[in-house]
């Protein structure tokens, strides 16, 4: 396999990892106002993701860095072209990260309430905008002959991309509800389970609509097969949630996200950012990539270090595998 293809796949893997992991901590943040009816239950919800959210977010930083190293043209076009949405995402992530760390550092209902709003908004905004961004990448944007984005901000808010945003929103929220049911015990477990059941009913039509639209626009065999698999995984999550098989339900929503990202990347290939002005202006894995030497160096680095990262991140989840309950939260 060509190294450009390898790196396209690796970046897909990084995004899939990011959606799989930060997906659920976004979901917990979005559900905070619903499941956290009093201070203690809010703290319980936040502490389910406490030890891991920061490590999850690094998947985004590595995806960004890897794109810079392997496909500098893509990195430059994408980030400068989507300037305002990215700015919004960054502001949301900043506010959210600070909120997790600072909300408990001072007493006072108003102080905490403000940070809770920050956690909610800071989780909601990226959960929508990542879907919008990927919707636009898939749909193609106005790139000129120099691969510069010449569209405006409002071009990015087209129906297909907005449906993409709605899709990531419901999928992440569902994923978060399943995670909460998996990681807590007592009333929150039951409540999150019920929420997950209700959310899955909303998630199915939205996600199916988006995947179907994608499939109709790009008649790509593998992409459609992966989309169908994602849809099946999502359907499987419904009975598993109802049966309170939380571990399996989490595996199912996780698989949905992984397969959906895989479907998007496979559909996109070999483009990385199609141009709607002229297909000849599209960025592809070939014209956006670094030199073979850089790709080779980065491949060795990735082959050697990715397994190590997976092992110790996996260990973190193992260390904190215990379900949390209200009595675990210090008074």
């Amino acid at each position, binding site marked *: 396999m060509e190294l450009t293809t390898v790196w396209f796949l690796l970046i897909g893997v990084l995004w899939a990892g990011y959606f799989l992991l930060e997906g659920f901590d976004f979901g917990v943040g979005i559900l905070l106002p619903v499941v956290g009816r009093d201070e203690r239950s809010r703290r319980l919800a936040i502490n389910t993701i406490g030890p891991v959210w920061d490590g999850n977010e690094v998947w985004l*930083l590595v995806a960004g860095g890897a794109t810079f190293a*392997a496909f500098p*043209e893509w990195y430059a076009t994408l980030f400068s072209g989507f300037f305002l949405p990215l*700015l919004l995402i960054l502001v949301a992530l*900043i506010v959210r990260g600070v909120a997790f760390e*600072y909300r408990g550092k001072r007493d006072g209902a108003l102080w905490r309430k403000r940070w809770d709003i920050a956690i909610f908004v800071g989780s909601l905004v990226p959960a929508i905008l990542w879907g919008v961004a990927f919707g636009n990448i898939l749909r193609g944007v106005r790139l000129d002959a120099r691969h510069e984005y010449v569209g405006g901000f409002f071009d990015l808010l087209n129906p297909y991309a907005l449906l993409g945003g709605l899709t990531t929103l419901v999928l992440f929220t569902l994923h978060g509800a399943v995670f909460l049911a998996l990681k807590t015990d007592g009333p929150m477990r039951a409540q999150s389970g019920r929420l997950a059941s209700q959310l899955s009913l909303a998630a199915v039509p939205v996600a199916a609509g988006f995947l179907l639209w994608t499939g109709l626009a790009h008649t790509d065999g593998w992409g459609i097969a992966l989309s169908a698999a994602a849809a099946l995984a999502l359907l499987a999550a419904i009975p598993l949630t109802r049966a309170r098989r939380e571990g399996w339900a989490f595996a199912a929503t996780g698989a949905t996200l992984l397969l959906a990202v895989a479907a998007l990347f496979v559909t996109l290939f070999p483009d990385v950012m199609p141009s709607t002005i002229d297909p000849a202006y599209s960025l592809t894995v070939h014209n956006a990539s670094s030199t073979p030497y850089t790709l080779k160096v980065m491949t060795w680095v990735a082959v050697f270090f990715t397994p190590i990262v997976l092992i*110790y991140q996996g260990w973190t989840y193992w260390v*904190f595998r215990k379900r949390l309950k209200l009595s675990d939260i*210090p008074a």
Partner: protein
Amino acid sequence: MDSLDLSRWQFGITTVYHFIFVPITIGLSALVAGLQTAWVRTGKEHYLRATKFWGKLFLINFAIGVVTGIVQEFQFGMNWSNYSRFVGDIFGAPLAMEGLLAFFLESTFLGLWIFGWDRLPKRVHLATIWTAAIGTMLSAYFILAANSWMQHPVGWKMGDGRAELTSIWAVLTNSTTLVTFPHTITACFLTAGALLLAVSAWHLRKGNQEQVFRPSLRLGAWVVLIAGLGVLITGDLQARVMTEQQPMKMAAAEALYENTESASFSVFTIGSLDGKEEVWSVRIPSLLSFMATGDPSGEVEGINDLQSAYQREYGEGDYTPIVPVTYWSFRLMIGFGGLAMLVALAALWFNRGERRSTSRWLWIASIGCVAMPLLANSFGWIFTEMGRQPWTVFGLFKTDQSGSPAVSTGEAATGLIVLTLLYGVLAVIEVGLFLKYARAGAPEIPADTGDEAEDRPLAFAY
């Protein structure tokens, strides 16, 4: 102002702001790890209390350092897309390595440290903070390798309209990186040491928790002195490498216009606004020549000579950085760093043995000490980056070519305003929290209830 100017301001503001917190993170994580090691080895409770106290301040600071770091990586693509296109083949590699090798370590093991107090065996838990500390240093190494490549490009060739990597080894062992890394790391320890010194001095004067804060004061002061010495030595080495690689930066640092042998170093100058005429100055003979070349009688190239040499090499244009900025940032960097060392020395001397200083001035100076390395760090970066202008990649690629064509003036202005306001608000909140916890003093350690760890509430939960 156009999109490029706005992007330059944004880059300057976000980078200087981010680098207020980074040195504290790097230095303090290792010092907290050291204190925790002392506790694990001796079992003395005051070490545990010190670990928890400094650990809390470390986390308040780390949170903001981490979140503002996200902007650093993304703004290359957002505001500097032409730069990213030109250097991505090279510059992206250390950046991606920073993410994969360092960020994951820091964030994952810090999460384990924060939440693992009751969940991990003592020694494993100790290893998590050391691993996080090592992660912060690895991170510094990769980002400095990337920055050093901009100061002194190595291991590259000109490809099809962009710079292409020919040797990753050359980039990772760039002579600039090898002197910049120890200089930056020692400066980080200087910063963290000053923080320990300042907060401890405040508590000792109030008569609080002498058992915790006396060792901390001493530790802080020693760290400032030893790290300061390291900063001095590595700074001296760095000056020589810089003179060799970027003679214009050295000339601008002294506002030296003509080639001069046995050049003197001006500690302070009152001059005309453009920095070209000198009214009055305090000078140390031959020091600049020594700093630049290692020889007191060595020749230092002046701005005018370099300007004409660069014009011959790179074509018409102004190759002189803004002289007053480089001149003063260079002095303020050295001055504030040196001042911190003097205060630390005084604090150690007047608190030696069982003695306790009662001097109000020393007390004020010790508390003020916290700001000195922070200012020195900021001016150091302003000097390094502004002194490279008009280049983003020295000799290869200019700043005015580096911006993003797709970003409008309005968008760039939005970015600048939003981030500046946000960072301003966060600064107020951060300082408030920091002071609250610094004043509160070290926590009491609750007696072991004998419960199984499984049944106890989370010790360090959010």
